[in-house]
């Protein structure tokens, strides 16, 4: 074989190979192709986003969260779900949830909001922070084209609840702020049909969008991830101050509020932090705001950090009670006394829970059936 003949053979072989073999590793490549599909396929939504302004030069500035992303043409904000197209900002996840479940309201957790009922829980891809411990990282740290979405119009979401007799819709799992428009429209339709709306959020949102949204919502649960700015900067990749401001705003505007604090070993679990947290809540929100301490489980980037010991949670519980908070709960500790609600006046059990179940309710309306003390919340 001479060199020319050899080159000809190689050329033919390569052409045949290229023509016949498009995927060398189909089973593995399938997953990675989905993960790498950064271009927008046609199935994404394109509804104009709210709360942005056009910049003097080309580009827009998103005003929905304190991140204030400045986005040039065909780029997206930090959340990966909002795109600038010719200086118009679009949400790509409107009507395209990637997670849909029917959960007990206690799973959110909301303990003072229609106990023992269920909620249609939905989420889209994307998030405006990047917590190292995120339980929902597979969707929250994805772009919408990287998740398995299905179309669900706001009216259909509400109708599902009506047909299935589900009293509440929960915007949860990822960060609802990034699908604000979708959440807003569902909540508005829901109100007309008597379906409640609750937002499960990190509270990293600007004042104006929250102000406009709150009248549509019945309750908000805020994940206050720490009481230290440094933690927010290094572990959450966000800021603490705006979250604290929004908590005060929610309380002031009268929407039902509950707080969850995820106790992450070594990172936000010191007694000093629990004390500071309790004092801040008492001072700025009042001692009747339900505060849940939930247990960290190894997730996402903190895959090898051990789960929170029960004793740490109990320490948090005791500190908050000693500081005067009236409704302190421990999450995912079935059988523990801190699962149930007690009347702060007479000490009677007003709502007895185990796991996601409400075993007993001793309330007359929103009053303790024993001493008539008002228990804050929305119960009936």
């Amino acid at each position, binding site marked *: 074989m001479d060199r020319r003949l*050899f080159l000809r053979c190689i050329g033919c072989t390569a052409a045949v190979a290229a023509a016949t073999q498009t995927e060398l590793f189909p089973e593995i490549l399938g997953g990675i192709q989905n*993960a790498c599909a950064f271009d927008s396929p046609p199935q994404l939504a394109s509804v104009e986003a709210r709360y942005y302004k056009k910049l003097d030069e080309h580009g827009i500035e998103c005003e929905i969260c304190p991140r204030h992303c400045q986005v040039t043409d065909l780029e997206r904000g930090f959340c990966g779900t909002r795109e600038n197209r010719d200086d118009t900002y679009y949400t790509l996840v409107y009507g395209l949830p990637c997670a849909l479940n029917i959960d007990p309201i206690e799973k959110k957790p909301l303990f003072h909001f229609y106990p023992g009922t269920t909620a249609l829980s939905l989420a889209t891809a994307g998030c405006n922070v990047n917590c*190292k411990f995120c339980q929902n990282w597979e969707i929250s740290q994805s772009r919408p084209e990287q998740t398995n979405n299905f179309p669900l119009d706001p009216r259909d979401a509400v109708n599902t609840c009506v047909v299935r007799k589900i009293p509440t819709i929960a915007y949860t799992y990822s960060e609802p702020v990034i699908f604000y428009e979708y959440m807003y429209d569902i909540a508005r339709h829901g109100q007309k049909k008597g379906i409640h709306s609750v937002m499960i959020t990190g509270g990293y949102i600007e004042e104006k969008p929250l102000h406009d949204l709150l009248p549509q919502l019945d309750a908000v649960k805020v994940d206050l991830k720490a009481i230290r700015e440094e933690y927010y900067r290094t572990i959450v990749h966000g800021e603490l101050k705006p979250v604290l401001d929004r908590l005060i705003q929610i309380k002031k505007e009268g929407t039902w509020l509950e707080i969850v604090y995820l106790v992450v070993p070594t990172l936000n679990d010191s007694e000093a932090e629990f004390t500071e947290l309790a004092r801040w809540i008492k001072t700025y929100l009042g001692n009747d705001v339900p505060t849940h301490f939930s247990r960290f489980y190894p997730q996402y*980037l903190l895959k090898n950090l051990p789960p929170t010991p029960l004793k740490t949670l109990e320490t948090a519980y005791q500190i908050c009670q000693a500081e005067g908070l009236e409704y302190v709960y421990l999450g995912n500790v079935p059988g523990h006394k801190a699962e149930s609600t007690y009347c702060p006046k007479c000490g009677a059990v007003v709502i007895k829970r185990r796991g996601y*179940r409400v075993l007993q309710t001793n309330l007359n309306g929103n009053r303790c059936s024993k001493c008539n003390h008002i228990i804050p919340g929305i119960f009936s």
Partner: protein
Amino acid sequence: MKRQAFFLGLFSIGGQVLLLRELIRTFHGNELFIGTALFGWFLAVALGAYFGGKTARSISSSLIFITGVLLLPVMIILTRLFPHFAGYVVGEYIPLSTAILISTLAMLPIGLLSGWLFPVITNRGRLLSKSVARVYLFEGIGAFVGGIIVMLVTGGLLSTLQTAGLLGLGIIWGLLTGYRTALTKRIIITLVFTILYAGVHYSMAQMDSAIEKINYHGYAIITSFDTHYSHQTILSRDSSIVLLTDNTIEAVYPQIESAEYMLIPPLAYIPDTGNILMLGGSRLEIAAIADSLPYLSITIVDPRKKLHRVIDNLITNSKNIVLYTDDPVSFITEEHATAQFDIVIINPGELDSYKNSRFITKRIISHCRQLLKPRGILYIPTPYDTDRYISYETAPILSAIFSTLQNIFDYVTVWPGTNSLFFASQSPVLDISYDSLITNLNMLTYYPQYVNDYYLGNRLNPLRIERMNSILHKQHQTTSFIKPHLLHLQTVYRAKANKQDTQILSLILSASYWLPLAVILAVTGGLLTCSKDRTRSITLFLYFIAGLVSLSLELIVFYIFQSTVGTLYSEIAVLIGAFMLGLAFGTMWALNHGGKQLAPVSLLFLLNATILLALTYHFIPTSVSLLYFGLFLFAVALATGGLFVGATNHLYRQNPLYNPGSGYALEILGSSLGALFTTTLLLPVIGLYWLLVIIIGLIITAFLGARVLER
């Protein structure tokens, strides 16, 4: 010179193996990095040899040795502290891209010095050609002896750092006490070194402890030690005890939820269970509830006999737990195969290493079926979260596990939830209603806190079940010992947590990337073969094949050994040592006795050994595996040494002025490609059979080329 060459072997194997252990530990037990680490090692050795050759007469070997033995513990410490220096918080996952980079870089300094020493020591001989062969031989002997020492002492007696200290002092002692040293002087030096070693031993233990305190700040370190199986760290915080294996959480005590999900779900199907066999880590966790189910007899198979009294006491307190010291795979594939259990539990953990993913192969699942009674259940709890959605990356993993189980069992069912639970049986025992499950759970003497009606109603609601079923039947690819792709699906899954990882994997797995590369390689090979100087081209091809085939076979042996025996952590030292010894003897033999047909004879020998491996590896009892694979690698290296000399004879006899580094460079290039692709990429994609067929094909091609040369 011989003595120095021997210590070079000792230093080289020690450096390579101890650093590999540290990398496996730092990167959570993942063996994919062995390939990139070895690539870094070869690169460094080649560079060191090149620069060493240029400066051979100006630098003393003792100085390089001393630098090397001082640098080795430093490199181990740096590797171990890397997550801290790089700003990772306690328990944070290190992305694949970072691990690839670090595993390559970590090997460079020691590899460089090891390569440097070779020409420096060689230059001490009078006749260069003879001294090269002698250094090669004694380096091989040193590597083999070093391999055995490292395997015996590391884990069992000493920590990695202490072994590095022992190795360093041993080498310096050896260099100072020659044959001609007076007895009195030798005794004094030995005494001084013994005292020095006591100091080093103590200070290294302190160092081990100090590093753990830095890496796990906020936790009390109960103990930290190496076993032949892995590195163990036991931590405590707020009354909970954490057992870490290679920086990965193996178990937490007390952790009722994990304990219940490890033991209770199969009892919901057969509450009248008597015997349970548990494979994989978790002995600590189930100790929290085992006592409450006294009628169960739980056999736990674990290769680590004792961990620490804190943990061992917790387990021995549970009277119905029987601890059997053996590798789980050896246990189920050998003499115990006739035992009958009601439930076999496989707890593979994250499927991010061959050690873990080997449990979910058709071979092991079949063995488990044989251990079960007719109504028995195989139960596999996996850590994949399917509670709220099932991602594109999780789906193929779950589907592969499901298909593999379905291949062996008639009935398979899966519980979705924050951890996905697989059940398989030969009887319809799994086909029961939700109410029956709850009734069965209520019959237990222990009332579960988590596996009960309060939680299961939500976990097993129709929406979740429907979602799970929709993805399970999408793919039908099973995972097997021959084609183990679970580890790679897991790598893709974890890569999603890091953009660079996603991009790197996308690049590696993309057909459009490989096709042109394959064409370029073929064209280059073809051009070389069709060049006017055919002898030179074929000879260079033989060098390349020597490196590629030998290293590919070495890595295949590592994989088979790990998958069948499960303890590569220490034995890798003996396997590499046997390879080095074979290489040295092969070269020596070829130099002294090699005739004209050296290259074809060596290739024929290599071909026979490879075919023999392909035909016999699955019949080898685990008790003789180390001997079998050690001998195989020795044979492969023997042939490689012969082939190297054969090719050298051809190349330099006819072209005495030809670049002396070309042959060696091509061999290293072959080794590097073998290190990078064999088990990392090709094994899960084309499978072990085809990989061996390709290697046999390459050897035959090289054999034909060698025959052409001889004509």
